């Protein structure tokens, strides 16, 4: 065995992973190599000295001091920030969905409102607004068609690349999630 292999075994010794066979090989090497023997004795000394350092105890009053500071702080209310954020984004999603439904069915809603005279004052404001939305939609549609004509030739490549990217992303997410679950299970 050369000195480099002996050094690897010394690292395994420090990890506490040395098998009996490896220990015998290392032992044989250090009886013949003075440099490795000195190195091993130093590593061994480090391991033993570390084991003597493990009994550090925190001061007796640390806990009481920490707790008196904690009691001076406000208590958690059982509702974490993340829950509040979930609620906030949920509300935004509902409002946006309702808005989208109203915009998409605006013609029918305006027709029904026109049948009832009591909505007349509101319709004075809503009709021009609906007309603006209609114009905006028409302009957007025109822009999309123009962009489509330019982009269309490239789409033959974009679609397969997008599908492959999504598949790779999905695999990475699945792999990471699996590792995370394994770690939690440990």
């Amino acid at each position: 065995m050369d000195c480099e292999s002996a050094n690897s075994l010394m690292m395994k010794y420090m990890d506490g992973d040395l098998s009996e066979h490896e220990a015998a090989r290392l032992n044989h090497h250090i009886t013949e190599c003075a440099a490795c023997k000195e190195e091993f004795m130093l590593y061994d000394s480090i391991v033993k000295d570390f084991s003597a350092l493990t009994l550090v105890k925190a001061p007796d009053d640390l806990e009481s001091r920490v707790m008196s500071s904690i009691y001076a702080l406000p208590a958690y209310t059982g509702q974490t920030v993340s829950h509040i954020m979930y609620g906030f984004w949920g509300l935004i999603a509902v409002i946006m969905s309702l808005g989208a439904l109203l915009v998409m069915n605006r013609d029918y809603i305006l027709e029904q409102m026109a049948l009832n005279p009591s909505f007349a004052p509101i319709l004075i404001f809503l009709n021009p607004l609906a007309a603006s939305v209609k114009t905006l939609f028409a302009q957007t549609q025109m822009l999309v068609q123009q962009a489509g004509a330019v982009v269309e030739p490239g789409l033959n490549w974009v679609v397969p690349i997008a599908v492959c990217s999504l598949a790779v992303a999905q695999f990475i997410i699945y792999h990471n999630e699996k590792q995370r679950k394994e770690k939690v299970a440990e």
Partner: protein
Amino acid sequence: MSNYTDYELIQGVLAGNKDLFSELVTRYKNLVYSVILRMINDREEADDLAQEVFIKLYKNLDKYYPDFKFSTWTIRIATNHVIDYRRKKKQETVPIEDVEFSLTSEDSPESEYIKREQSNELKKIVSELPDMYKIPIVLYHEQGLSYQEISDIVNEPLSKVKNRIFRGRRMLKESLLSLRHKEGISYGL
């Protein structure tokens, strides 16, 4: 209270029961204190910093997710807190002579003296290591954490952590060698 898991205790604290936090302090005070003490080498400062770390843990408890063990998260906060503290203080190393550890031992006074001397030597050379080697070395050899746990704490890949521990050991060996050569100690060579 001691039958609860860490996560159950945390959920209890988040539900408003502060008393449960004391059990978490009981469980991890020695770990936090010894990691800080090894990094800072001053009992008084370590004492204050340990207290600050537990208060920080309490304030950030709602950000803890059980992806990692609570001990891992705790040490990560403790090491980062000490690094921030030292950065603010702009202090790299402090004398180690005053540090004494309460070791329970039934050895003779002579062998205990030798052990204490050797421990002091080790403490000195460990304190001289740069943080990037010192933290993984202390967590592995002194606190008995696994490579994976250290990788989670320092937020570095496993291979990098292993390399730093191996390199750190070599640096410790070189320092110890020169220290002992100065003292004229050899191993029968």
